[in-house]
């Protein structure tokens, strides 16, 4: 009876159309990782040698997990805690809580990064960015001052305002404006970049494979990591947006559109950056693209501003191009941040709280817990390391919950159920039941074993990027959620039933 009530519930809000859902979900997937991380990783992994495995992992990691998230969210109509409880069993609700926590922990510092992008947009638009001769000093002065803190607050406030408006009037409306604008800006920059004299060398490097490099297992692991980190697969965010998809909406075709759309943007951004760097760089272009800088900021906030000052002979045109680049970066970051705030908010709503109050809690906690990352890049790098790898574990939990439910049953009932345009074949059982778990085990092991070699005191939980800090922080979160599991699950399902019963009266 309870399940009948749950499944026939009347939801208050839905995305108005398939395209609105796709645009909002593409907004999740396209983030700063497509623009700055992708280019850096391509450069570090031999250009074209990286692209082939990267495309393969799009097919065997990203798209299957996006399908899984859509199907779980659409069928359960809960945030990750309730959704994983319904799919894997109530004793595994803590896995959903872990998924929420990982994305929320990323939200805390991602808001800081979003603030950086906004600040650099203002700097570029005002011309201030080009008044400096040393962009490293400019960056250091900004990052060590109060600027990151102020812009972190502004970013979180803006996003909270959007989420407060709800799914249709807030998230859908804003992403419908920002995602197409981001595409137009990126395409404009793309056209300018590929028409620069010398740009062809960048494009050539981008697509030239080195077979020896391609046989290196590190290239494959980096390709998988990039897919895991930049498509939004396994974060629980798509699962949250799927709550608001209409019953007649398709799953598999939409998932493919998002995965392929995301990687298309990465290629456009990659060609743009490689063309610009190869055309304008006076020193070794490859060193500039692949250098990390503090918290991996080197290329975007230090070197690209320098290049933008030479993109044409007109200083006002240079200002326009630089402003467009940082505005695109800001839009990409904001649309992802919106989904992180919505996921945390939705999870609290599932516990019976009203949206406004839930959002105030999420935004306040977000502002507060983002402060350490805004004040200290080492904290940001630590959180990025711990929860970045945590995302792979989140993906594993999603895969685990489907295996628990029965992969074939899940495929036929949820993915190929009502509304599906394209039926998914039995290959999906193999991918989600075997390939994804294998990828998870290999990837987590590789990252953690590698981290031992970076730090002689690999066990020390208070070091920035090592095994100890990962296990320590994961351990605390997992133990707390396992202890709270019964209470969480009981509360969510009781609240849902009560609210539905009162609705049906």
């Amino acid at each position, binding site marked *: 009876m309870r399940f009948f009530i749950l499944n026939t519930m009347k939801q208050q809000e839905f995305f108005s159309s*398939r395209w609105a859902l*796709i645009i909002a979900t593409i907004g999740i997937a396209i983030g700063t990782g497509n623009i700055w991380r992708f280019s850096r990783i391509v450069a570090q992994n031999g250009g*074209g040698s990286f*692209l*082939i495995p990267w*495309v393969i992992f*799009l097919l065997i990691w990203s798209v299957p997990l996006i399908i899984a998230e859509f199907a779980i969210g659409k069928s359960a109509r809960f945030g990750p805690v309730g959704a994983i409880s319904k799919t894997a069993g109530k004793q595994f609700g803590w896995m959903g809580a872990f998924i929420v926590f990982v994305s929320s922990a990323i939200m805390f510092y991602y808001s800081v990064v979003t603030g950086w992008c906004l600040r650099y947009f203002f700097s570029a638009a005002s011309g201030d960015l080009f008044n400096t001769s040393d962009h490293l000093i400019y960056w250091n002065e900004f990052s060590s001052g109060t600027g990151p803190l102020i812009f972190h607050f502004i970013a979180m406030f803006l996003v909270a305002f959007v989420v407060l408006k709800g799914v249709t009037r807030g998230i859908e409306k804003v992403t419908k404006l920002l995602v197409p604008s981001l595409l137009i800006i990126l395409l404009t920059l793309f056209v300018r970049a590929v028409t620069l004299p010398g740009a062809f060398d960048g494009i*050539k490097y981008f*697509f*030239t*494979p080195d077979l020896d490099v391609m046989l290196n297992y590190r290239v494959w692991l980096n390709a998988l990591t990039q897919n895991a980190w930049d498509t939004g697969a396994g974060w629980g965010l798509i699962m949250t947006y799927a709550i608001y998809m209409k*019953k*007649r909406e*398709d799953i598999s*075709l*939409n998932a*493919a*559109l998002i995965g*392929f*759309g995301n*990687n*298309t943007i990465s*290629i456009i951004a990659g060609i743009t950056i490689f063309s610009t760097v190869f055309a304008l760089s006076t020193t070794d272009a490859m060193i500039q693209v692949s250098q990390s800088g503090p918290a991996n900021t080197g290329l975007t906030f230090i070197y690209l501003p320098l290049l933008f000052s030479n993109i044409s002979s007109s200083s006002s045109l240079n200002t326009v191009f630089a402003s467009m680049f940082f505005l695109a970066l800001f839009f990409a970051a904001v649309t992802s941040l919106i989904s992180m705030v919505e996921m945390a908010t939705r999870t609290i709503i599932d516990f019976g709280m009203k949206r406004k109050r839930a959002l105030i809690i999420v935004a306040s906690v977000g502002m507060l817990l983002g402060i350490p990352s805004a004040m200290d890049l080492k904290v940001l790098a630590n959180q990025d390391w711990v929860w970045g790898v945590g995302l792979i574990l989140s993906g594993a939990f999603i895969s685990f919950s489907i295996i628990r439910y029965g992969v074939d049953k899940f495929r036929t009932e949820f993915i190929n159920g009502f509304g599906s*345009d*394209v039926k998914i074949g039995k290959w999906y059982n193999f991918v989600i039941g075997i390939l994804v778990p294998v990828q998870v085990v290999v990837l987590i092991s590789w990252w953690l074993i590698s981290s031992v070699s970076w730090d002689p005191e690999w066990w020390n939980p208070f070091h920035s990027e090592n095994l100890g800090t990962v296990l320590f922080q994961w351990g605390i979160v997992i133990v707390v959620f396992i202890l709270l599991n019964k209470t969480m699950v009981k509360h969510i399902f009781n609240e849902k039933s009560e609210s539905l019963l009162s609705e049906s009266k």
Partner: protein
Amino acid sequence: MDKLTIITALIVLGIVWGGLAFFIFRAVKYEKLKTENGKEES
């Protein structure tokens, strides 16, 4: 540009961009069908 570079570009762009175009085309087709079949009213 050597052959290998051209082949890699064709494979990558063919799969990613070609795949996206293919899925957009199919989604548009199914949306049209759904509208024609009156599924929008449900």
